[in-house]
């Protein structure tokens, strides 16, 4: 293999791999993109549905649940405290003791014990009984902590409550004596008309604040306990205590949440965008024991924090799926593409081999054709020149058409004088190269025989030729007789006298005495070279005195044997003869044209079957001069 070829192959190799890889990568890339898109779409839809669901649930359930449970806790605490306060205030012992201006020591003992017990047993930071008569404020230790003073703003709650005639009151208050803010539940001792004093319990805000902190939903969530005006009394964030909702919410939102349309449970749910553009969910829930409301706010982003994990998980799962599917797909496509690639490679290989073989074949073919072309020159060299033929005959045409480049048909002349010569047309067994080889041999033999004095004995010439063929070409090969031979028609001409002998060939004649009919001089049936050639066969010399305008035709079997027509039959001798008859009186060049055309019309698309030779000639010294052309009917 030359370097150049190797290089070309390498280039091809490279191109092929690039082609394959590009194709495979395209498919893989496309599939990956589709898979990714599908996963993304599924993920996005899933996430959206989940988000919508979560948001829905958050607004319709979770926030409500949080707010309600918070409110319920506070309500519970306050109700218990209210109940306790009511019981304490309604206790006859306490009522009598306070009504009796705390003089009855026995009652006092009991009442004070109640104070102590309630505080310690029920975990209230403080319990109290305040007498309207004496103004004494009894605390959880059963001692007087202070005396109510109408002038003291910190004591105002007591006088206000008594004046309000309400049986019970929950309020937030800073207790001066205790130095702390409490939720106090005040219950009236006595009736609305006559109040002897106030008894109740106090809850430490810190306790509740702790509770509130337990409800810390997320970092940004806020829980406020507000009164009707929006003042914050309690928050999960102690800093907010004493501030107003207005400090935390836009005014419209605050109004909405405090006075919005609540549902049956008194819950108001709304959402708004805060200054920073964060979506906030807000819910308010009334505390039944008081006029207060519990307001709970949570940033949407934080309540959807669970979605973040879902999103993260989904993304991870998605990526993992995509990666996995891609790997699987890649592997599978490689598996699929591999045989395909191998097939491509094999195909390339085969194509290369085929190309190489084709090149070799075409080279061989060219060599063979060149060789045959050269052989043609040789074969043509032994054939008479057109000038010789023109000189010999008054007029003639020669239709010589080997099936292949060279052939087994030949024509031969030997001239002895001005109007004395021998003309022959022959058809050697086979065609193509073997036929042509034989024509060369036969040509030599004829030349030798023509040197002998047989010039006016064509039959003798044929017998001599037969012997020569038997001796040279038909050498015994392994006891097997080869039957190669030739058909030949030979005319010995002297002036206007023609002597004909043929072997496997007849002499056709038109014109002369039998104007437009064909006269046939039959040659012997057996070909030269046939084992029984000349034995009892009609091998004889036939003499013709040429009439005016008589045309002689010598034809090999290629013309009549040519297949074609509607039934794919041979052209046939009869058809040929009637064609010749129809040409009587037509100039020879025109005859050749018609003869050629007739056969090609008959053949149609069929291939030439054999070598074709038709020689037509007229003798010199003819008084009839042919015109140009003439009517000819095609047979």
């Amino acid at each position: 293999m030359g370097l150049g070829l190797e290089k070309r192959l390498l280039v091809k190799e490279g191109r092929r791999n690039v082609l394959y890889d590009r194709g495979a990568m395209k498919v893989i890339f496309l599939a990956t993109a589709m898979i990714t898109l599908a996963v993304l779409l599924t993920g996005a839809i899933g996430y959206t549905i989940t988000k919508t669901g979560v948001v829905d649930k958050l607004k319709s359930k979770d926030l409500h649940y949080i707010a309600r449970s918070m409110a319920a806790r506070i309500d519970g605490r306050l109700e218990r405290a209210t109940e306790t306060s009511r019981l304490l205030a309604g206790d006859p012992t306490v009522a009598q003791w306070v009504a009796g201006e705390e003089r009855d020591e026995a009652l006092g003992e009991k009442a004070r014990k109640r104070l102590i017990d309630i505080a310690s047993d029920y975990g209230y930071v403080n319990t109290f009984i305040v007498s309207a008569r004496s103004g004494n404020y009894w605390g959880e230790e059963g001692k007087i902590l202070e005396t109510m003073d109408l002038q003291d703003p910190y004591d105002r709650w007591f006088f206000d409550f008594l004046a309000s005639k309400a049986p019970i009151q929950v309020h937030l208050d800073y207790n001066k004596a205790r130095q702390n803010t409490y939720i106090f539940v005040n219950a009236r001792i006595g009736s609305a008309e006559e109040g002897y004093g106030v008894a109740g319990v106090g809850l430490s805000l810190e306790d509740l604040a702790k509770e509130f902190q337990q409800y810390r939903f997320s970092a940004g969530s806020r829980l406020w306990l507000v009164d009707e005006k929006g003042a914050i009394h309690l928050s999960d964030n102690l800093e907010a205590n004493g501030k107003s909702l207005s400090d935390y919410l836009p005014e419209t939102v605050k109004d909405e949440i405090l006075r919005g349309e609540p549902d049956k449970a008194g819950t108001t749910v709304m959402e708004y965008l805060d200054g920073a553009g964060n979506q906030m969910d807000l819910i308010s829930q009334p505390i039944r024991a008081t006029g207060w409301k519990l307001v709970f706010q949570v940033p949407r982003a934080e309540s959807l924090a669970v979605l973040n994990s879902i999103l993260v998980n989904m993304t991870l799962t998605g990526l993992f799926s995509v990666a996995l599917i891609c790997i699987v797909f890649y592997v599978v496509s490689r598996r699929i593409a591999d045989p395909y690639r191998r097939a491509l490679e094999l195909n390339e290989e085969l194509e290369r081999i085929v190309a190489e073989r084709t090149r070799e074949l075409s080279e061989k073919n060219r060599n063979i054709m060149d060789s045959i072309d050269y052989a043609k020159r040789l074969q043509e060299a032994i054939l008479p020149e057109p000038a010789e033929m023109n000189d010999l005959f008054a007029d003639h045409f020669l239709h010589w058409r080997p099936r292949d480049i060279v052939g087994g048909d030949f024509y031969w002349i030997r001239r002895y004088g001005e109007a004395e010569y021998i003309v022959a047309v022959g058809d050697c067994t086979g065609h193509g190269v073997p036929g042509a080889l034989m024509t060369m041999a036969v040509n030599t033999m004829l030349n030798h025989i023509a040197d002998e004095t047989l010039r006016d004995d064509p039959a003798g010439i044929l017998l001599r030729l037969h012997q020569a063929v038997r001796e040279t070409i038909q050498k015994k090969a392994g006891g097997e007789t080869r039957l190669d031979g030739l058909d030949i028609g030979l005319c010995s001409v002297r002036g206007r006298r023609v002597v004909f002998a043929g072997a496997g060939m007849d002499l056709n004649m038109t014109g002369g005495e039998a104007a437009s009919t064909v006269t046939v001089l039959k040659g012997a049936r057996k070909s030269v070279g046939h084992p029984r050639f000349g034995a009892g066969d009609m091998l004889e010399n036939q003499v013709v005195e040429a009439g005016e305008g008589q045309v002689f035709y010598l034809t090999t079997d290629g013309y009549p044997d040519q297949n074609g027509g509607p039934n794919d039959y041979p052209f046939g001798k009869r058809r040929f003869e009637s064609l010749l008859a129809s040409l009587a009186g037509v100039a020879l060049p025109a005859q050749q044209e018609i003869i050629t055309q007739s056969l090609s019309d008959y053949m149609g698309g069929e291939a030439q079957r054999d070598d074709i030779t038709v020689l037509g000639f007229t003798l010199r010294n003819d008084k009839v001069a042919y015109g140009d052309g003439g009517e000819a009917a095609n047979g």
Partner: protein
Amino acid sequence: MDKLYIAGAKGTPEVDFDPLQHTLKLSGQSYPENAFKFYEPILRWVDAYLDQLTTEVNVVIDFSFPYINTSSSKCVMMLLEKLDEAFQKGKQLSLNWYYDEDNESELECAEEFKEDVTMPFQLIPRERKDD
């Protein structure tokens, strides 16, 4: 011995020589590029067949050549010579040559062959398919 069968192809006839039925059939156009090469094994087979052929057996030969070129006809001639030689030695062979009535050269060709052999030789018009 084995049957000789060669499927017909473009340019070569179908060969169906059955040594059990004693029928030798050749049918189809014959114009191979190298006729001798094609007919060589047929000639060899016929040699072997005729060698073991007894005089009691009746052999039927069916030939049908719509077209036969010169070199093929030389080979068929050789084949007929072998068969005729066996006939002259007293073996029972008869030849049926089927031809197309509309194809003059076929009959002509068949008649030429007929002249060269002594065994029974029937010229039978071929049944045409389109009838």
